[in-house]
């Protein structure tokens, strides 16, 4: 039985990435041994009147230095307060939670499709695949946003040495159009050699799901839903399954096979 742990950590590095996006590096994660790409942490800010924690995908984890990073975008009350925190501030972090991504066969070419703040878990996936010996030339990272400034921390993805395909809705950088169009424009999906991973806004996930189903492309998508407890006891963060019934994003997810969830 896995153990759910809570760590009391400090922000050791904070950086603004523009457009209301921030990166937090936190430490020390003394109880956490390893983290799978696609897992998330549930963060509580002490001394605020927010009741619930907020969920963030793990962007990076350094087991040797016991540091964990997230990228977050200011969205509502909780993330606005988080943006005001400075280096040295304490946070109460529960996790890692959720299932994480399954790794593809090494014979496959991996397509990572990130939209906006869906970038962090796919960065960690790319990094982990490289450390497991996957060919960097066969990891294609499609990163889409409304415009250039929304492609936050893209330089870090490029440093991995994988193939990066930026796209923007307004054409200010890279391919002009949606991530799904950037994919079909650059990759021949008919040869059965690809494996898709996606994370991003709901509309993009729906488009990726449809694309994958129509091209018979295997893959996994990481989903989001307002999430009170994060450990499966409140039954709040649910989505309908195609096969009927609901699934808890925090517990059975947040990563699902293409076609599994009704988006």
């Amino acid at each position, binding site marked *: 039985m896995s153990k759910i742990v809570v760590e009391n950590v400090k922000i050791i590095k904070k950086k603004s990435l523009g457009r209301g996006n921030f990166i937090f590096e936190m430490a020390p994660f003394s109880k956490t041994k390893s983290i799978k790409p696609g897992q998330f942490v549930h963060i509580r800010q002490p001394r605020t009147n927010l009741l*619930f924690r907020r969920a963030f995908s793990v962007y990076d984890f350094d087991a040797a230095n016991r540091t964990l990073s997230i990228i977050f975008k200011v969205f509502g009350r909780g993330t606005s307060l988080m943006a005001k925190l400075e280096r040295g501030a304490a946070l109460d972090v529960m996790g890692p939670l959720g299932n994480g991504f399954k790794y593809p066969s090494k014979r496959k070419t991996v397509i990572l499709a990130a939209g906006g703040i869906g970038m962090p878990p796919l960065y960690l996936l790319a990094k982990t695949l490289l450390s497991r010996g996957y060919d960097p030339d066969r990891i294609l990272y499609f990163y889409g946003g409304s415009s250039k400034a929304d492609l936050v921390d893209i330089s870090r993805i490029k440093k991995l040495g994988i193939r990066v395909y930026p796209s923007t809705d307004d054409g200010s950088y890279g391919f002009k159009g949606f991530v799904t169009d950037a994919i079909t424009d650059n990759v021949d999906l008919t040869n059965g050699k690809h494996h898709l991973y996606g994370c991003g806004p709901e509309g993009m996930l729906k488009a990726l799901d449809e694309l994958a189903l129509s091209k018979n492309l295997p893959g996994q998508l990481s989903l989001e839903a307002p999430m009170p407890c994060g450990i499966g006891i409140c039954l*709040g963060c649910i989505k309908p399954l195609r096969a009927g019934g609901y699934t808890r994003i925090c517990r059975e997810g947040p990563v699902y096979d293409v076609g599994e969830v009704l988006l």
Partner: protein
Amino acid sequence: MRPDLSIEIAGVKFSNPILTASGTCGYGEELAEVFNLSRLGGIVTKSITVLPREGHPPPRTAETEAGMLNAIGLANVGVDRFIEDKLTFLEKYNTVVVVNVAGAKLSEYVEISKRLADCPRADMVELNFSCPNVEAGMEIARDPELAEKAVGEVKKVFPRPVIAKLSPNVSDIALIARACESGGADALAVINTLVGMAVNIETFRPRLTNNTGGLSGPAIKPVALAKVNQVYNAVKIPIIGIGGIMNWVDVVEFFLCGACAVQVGTGLFVEPDAPIKIIEGLRKYLSSNKFSSVRELTGKLRKY
């Protein structure tokens, strides 16, 4: 001397007075990954119904000021799977198992309780009277006669103690409390959630697909304390206090108002190990104030 945290309700012994509330701890499986369930005084399982239910479509929870609204819609595995899978999981823990029962008709409460009568692991049942009753056209919790009858019928088929869980959404909770006591209830659980609504001003829609939901969390604690005290003055049977408990101070407040045990609900969503911290805090409070037993606190409120 180490203070005694144990309590007894209708002959059932609890190692401490901290229980987890129905609908906020599932059937214990997830919390068992956070702490050893044997450390709890008791666990109250999610309301079960005759047939499995998926519950309402999302969104069915919303965060509010110091609280939350929920309209989960009694999502549960149904009594058959509950007995097969969930009760057997709880078998290995040394804690009191209270099975919360819900129904759309009085006969459903009786049917489920009858099934549970043959399951010794179901130490007690707790009757959730805050769901719409199709025969009465309102919740049992709002109708003293029906509540008395329902408790009486369940008592006939379930040989162990029966707890009636009361709703705060009534004009006189003492009236319902006395009715449940007359019906033979062994204890009362006070309170369930308060009806509330949250609104999205961009879409003009309620934040829950069910339109209204049940308010819980710190926001309802003052209401819960007042109801516990009102019920304490109206009945002789033990009261289990519920509503917005986050820490041991809250627990002491509930005890002073008349509770002999408490349930932690929404607090688990914030800190899943809250019950453990509460037990430790309570023990320290008792020893530094020279109480030999937690039982000494019940009803000690010095009212003006």
